[in-house]
């Protein structure tokens, strides 16, 4: 049976790596994002690499009334659906501290926007079958002075995904939470970050995790153990750290 993937935030580096793998195996693709020119290039690339029915749809995750063309298109395609959410933005914590107006869009990109979309499409998923891939972050596992607004958004999203998993499991729809550590992309270019992985490796981990119906994956996988340790540090000690 033909599969269709709805990718939100499709032009992000990690999504692009995943889209490439999906195209090679002939999946149908609804590529959704803000930048029409980039989406068109990605759609062309996907078709050339062997994707099935492929469409590029512009939308803004901060504007729920832009969701309906995606939901309509999802209605029209056949077979199981997989929704993969890659939207998110990570302003520097110092920028947020200087301008708290940045908090609302940060929450909208990583939390309220994706939650609204998933809530609207959940009934269709329950009816048709399929899966959800939600991209959180290791930053959501514990609030840290260097990026806790972003971390809070990702933590909220992870909590939502766990509830959605609980709800959709009854309908046979699998929900997987992905928690990447630092990934080598345009956003991290020039930064020195520990245990960095590549977009291609993250895409591989996502496909492997879905195949094995994992609930929560870390990528690079070593971050599961790193975060286990970080979460175990008692708050009286943790609050004095500054990483």
């Amino acid at each position, binding site marked *: 049976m033909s599969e269709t993937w709805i990718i939100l935030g499709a032009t992000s580096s990690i999504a692009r790596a995943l889209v490439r793998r999906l195209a090679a195996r002939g999946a149908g693709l609804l590529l959704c994002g803000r930048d029409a020119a980039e989406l068109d290039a990605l759609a062309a690339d996907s078709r*050339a690499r062997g994707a099935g029915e492929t469409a590029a749809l512009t939308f803004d995750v901060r504007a729920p009334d832009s969701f309906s063309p995606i939901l309509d298109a999802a209605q029209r395609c056949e077979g199981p659906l997989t929704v993969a959410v890659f939207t998110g933005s990570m302003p520097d914590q110092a920028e947020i501290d200087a301008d708290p107006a940045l908090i609302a869009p940060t929450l909208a990109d990583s939390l309220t926007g994706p939650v609204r979309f998933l809530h609207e499409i959940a009934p269709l998923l329950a009816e048709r079958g399929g899966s959800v891939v939600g991209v959180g972050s290791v930053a959501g596992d514990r609030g840290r002075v260097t990026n806790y607004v972003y971390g809070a958004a990702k933590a909220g999203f992870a909590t939502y995904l766990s509830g959605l998993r609980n709800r959709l499991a009854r309908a046979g729809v699998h929900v997987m939470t992905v928690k990447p550590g630092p990934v080598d992309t345009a956003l991290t270019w020039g930064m020195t970050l520990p245990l960095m992985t590549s977009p291609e490796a993250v895409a591989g981990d996502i496909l492997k995790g879905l195949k094995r119906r994992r609930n929560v994956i870390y990528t690079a996988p070593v971050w599961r153990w790193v975060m286990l340790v970080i979460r175990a540090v008692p708050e009286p000690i943790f609050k004095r750290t500054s990483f």
Partner: protein
Amino acid sequence: MRFRQMDYTGWGRVLHASGEVARPERSRALAALAAEGPAMGNRRSYGDAPLNGGGRITDMTRMNRILGFDPETGVLHAEAGVTLGELAEIFAPRGWLPPVMPGTGFATVGGAIAMDVHGKNHQHAGSFGAHVTELELLGPTGARTVTPADLPLFRATLGGLGQTGIVASAKIAMQRCKGDVMVMTERRAPDWDGHLALLDGSDAPYVVGWIDATATGAALGRGIVEEGETASGLVARPRAARRVPFDAPGAALSPPVVRAFNRAYYARVPKAGRTSVRPIEKLFFPLDKIHDWNRLYGRRGFHQFQCVVPLAAADALRAMLERVATSGLASPLAVLKRMGPGRAGFLSFPMEGYTLAVDFPDRAAARALVGELEAMTEAAGGRIYLAKDSLASGARVRAMYPELDAWRAAVAEADPDGLYLTDLVRRLGLREAA
């Protein structure tokens, strides 16, 4: 766009650069970088062609989308960072191949244009640039579409070392193939004359000679001539690529090891020759199976010398090989090919004749030998390949490229402020007035 301060090298790892590198992923980010400096691809050129020490450079490897393919005409539109190996992998099963493929599949479309690369089918297909039907060039004043009718800019860009601007994307006429396997015939060439005779006599689409550059005396020039033709069918897919995990110690490619390797490599092909069916990459990119094989030469790195001489100067090439073979400095994989006349740009390397490529670890004696070989190339009316060079002198190279003045004039117009200068172009003084 953020820049990252990096130390980086070409494939040979002898020449280093330290400077700021950007790596855009989106077209708009790339466009903003066109006024910052030159571009580099996967840095498979050996010397300093992809380096801009002290300045800024744009890494194109993430601009790697295929923007379109027309299965009727075979015209492919690809961003500059797409690798030729990836194109072969995607399109060969559908009956299309990049028209020209250099010895590594890691070379990018942009690099193939900047170096006007050639392949094992040069006699039939000419150089890569001959198949480029259009390109998008980002210059200091913005983007423009360049076609073969835009002279002299088109010819200054093909093989133009990136000096006319950043190639963002190109349209390439792909070539029909029968499938993604290769019927490959390997034959022993016992000596120099036998080797040339096999190369001259072959009418296979793809031909290459591996030459034992350590054999001397009567065995001078011995080697294996490989001929290939694409076919359809199934073969066992090769194992995953291996990696060289660390810089090898100096002894790894010492003369006794190289001589023993060469002897075994020659003897593995039976006297009567053999024909087998292999995955296409086995013939096109034999070394790509070992990632980072350049580390076999240790931390100091290595040089590759590649020249082409006219057909009539075959004896001069033989003398060069003799000089290499008796020096005890050569490394395992030397290559001899016959070239046709096809060249697409003012600074393209190919000329009708024979081309020889030999690797040398970076030592004083090897550097001196390469200098000698360059002088012999010049005397024979040949030229050296700038994609490989890390040692040549400017005066000698300038004399080898007769269309240099035309190139220089077109480049001066496209890039009046020297924005796209690279270490190679500076070292050889290619853009300086004669």
